[in-house]
């Protein structure tokens, strides 16, 4: 029987929501395998959620209730917090025993950290950052963004090879059934085995929270967001003026502006910044990387101003304005001052 394993994403003792997206993707893969290989119902691929922890029972039970899926709690003696070293040792031991065809991991700071190493440990293929799964006559095909998000590359693992898939958060909609019975829960005790030199190489110290949560971005009805297309730090003034012309507005930025020290982190929108959902999001000179889109995809209405008509941001916009922002905003502000 084919096995599909989902590695639950756990942060500070809690399951993160992206795990439910992995469940949706696993179901899609199971259905694809079923169709393609014409398996009889009895051979429907089996899906397990893997929950690594020091004492996994409570969380494993909760996850089995929340998802209705079968759960294997991996009990790692002495485990406190994630490190790549511990995960690869313990998950490696378990997965080798189970011999699954597909291992699903979230494409997050944690998943990206251990999945590539895990794939080598298992001698498996590795496909990172998947945003779509499809099934055609050749079997399952995985799509992933490449070339600064301007293209999707379609990838197939070599037939017969197990594969570690990391899935882009937000790309798969959770589809947990309303009426479900809790799945079965099983606990397996698996100790962390150090390498041949008997040393622990990575010592976790602590988790810090970067100060600068921005309430203004969360409550604003309009967010005017600037990207590298504004060219220089001084042009942020123009962005602030644009924002001030609109009521209940706030200024957001793409990450490179924060990285360069042009503006504080509290303004950053995206997967490593704020997740925002304003009525209107106006992207000025932002290309539309998947990491940025992840932070503003829940906006009700998106307007983009970009001089490049094929900038990916336009695919994720309701209204597209192909112009130089440094000319467009002044033109807009002239109209504004005329009317006031």
């Amino acid at each position: 029987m084919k096995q599909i394993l989902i590695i639950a994403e756990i942060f500070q003792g809690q399951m993160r929501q992206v795990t439910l997206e992995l469940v949706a993707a696993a179901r899609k893969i199971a259905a694809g395998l079923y169709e393609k290989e014409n398996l009889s119902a009895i051979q429907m691929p089996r899906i397990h959620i893997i929950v690594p922890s020091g004492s996994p029972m409570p969380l494993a039970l909760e996850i089995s209730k929340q998802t209705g899926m079968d759960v294997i709690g991996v009990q790692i003696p002495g485990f406190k917090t994630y490190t790549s070293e511990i995960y690869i040792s313990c998950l490696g031991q378990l997965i080798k025993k189970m011999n699954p065809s597909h291992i699903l991991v979230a494409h997050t700071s944690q998943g990206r950290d251990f999945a590539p190493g895990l794939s080598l440990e298992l001698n498996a293929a590795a496909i990172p950052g998947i945003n779509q799964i499809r099934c055609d006559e050749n079997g399952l095909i995985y799509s992933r963004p490449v070339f600064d998000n301007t293209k999707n590359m379609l990838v197939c693992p070599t037939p017969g090879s197990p594969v570690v898939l990391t899935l882009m958060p937000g790309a798969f909609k959770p589809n947990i059934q309303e009426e479900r019975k809790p799945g079965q829960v099983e606990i397996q005790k698996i100790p962390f085995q150090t390498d041949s030199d008997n040393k622990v190489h990575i010592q976790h110290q602590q988790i810090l929270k970067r100060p600068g949560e921005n309430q203004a971005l969360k409550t604003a009805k309009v967010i005017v967001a600037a990207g590298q297309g504004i060219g220089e730090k001084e042009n942020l003034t123009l962005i602030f003026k644009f924002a001030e012309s609109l009521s209940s507005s706030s200024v957001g930025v793409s990450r490179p502006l924060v990285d360069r020290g042009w503006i504080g982190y509290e303004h950053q929108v995206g997967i490593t910044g704020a997740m925002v959902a304003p009525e209107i999001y106006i992207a000025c000179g932002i290309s539309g990387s998947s990491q940025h889109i992840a932070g503003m995809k829940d906006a009700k209405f998106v307007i983009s101003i970009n001089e490049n008509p094929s900038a990916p941001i336009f695919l994720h916009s309701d209204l597209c304005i192909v112009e130089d922002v440094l000319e467009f905003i002044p033109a807009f502000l002239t109209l504004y001052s005329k009317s006031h």
Partner: protein
Amino acid sequence: MKLLVCIKQVGDDGDMNRFDAHALEEALLLKKQLGDLILEPVSVDVMTVGPPGAEAIIKRAFGMGADKGYHIVIENSGYVSSFVTASLLAGVAEKSSYDLILTGIMSEDMMSGQTGPMLAKILGLPWATGVMKTSLDLTGHAMEIEREMENGFRDCLVIRLPALLTIQAGINTPRYPTLSNMLAADKKQIITHTTADLFPGPFQEKESCVGMESPEKTRLARVLEGSLSNKAEQLFAFLRKKDFI
């Protein structure tokens, strides 16, 4: 103490991958700090897997201050997996027993973020990804680092050397090549390897690229027509109708 930075040529202009410039900058900063701390010499090598023209980024790295350059020349212009790239890099890197290897968090073209961790795994080194801060442990055998996580969290670790770190933008501001370094760069030798030296026979890929597509739109994507001022008027009218002006 020996440091290695893996650099990749990307894009139509053949520039150095943006994240790799941050990785090289971090290595050069560490070299400076180490130079003040320890007596033994500190070197920063760079290594790339790429077509013949990829030499250009090694020259740029020399201009920034790298000491030695390795070029693994690859003729294949098709899909090369992170695993094969990592195996090629490992084939050369293993001969030099580096104390610290830095890569970018991802390449702008392939966007995998896998090459670094895979290289570490092949060489049997511990690794950490998305590093935003490094500080040297006074013993010289470990580093304290901060990994970036989602929602403003940082994961603080102590990692034993030798190790590999993948570097996230924002950790530093890459320097520009200096004229004097660029002039000296012409005299520096680039050590080249062919893939056949390292791997006789075809690559054993575990996955293959079966096509490329343009991404689909997720919203209406209505394009405003007209002159600049006309478009500004349309937007103005729209925002006013919605009561935001």
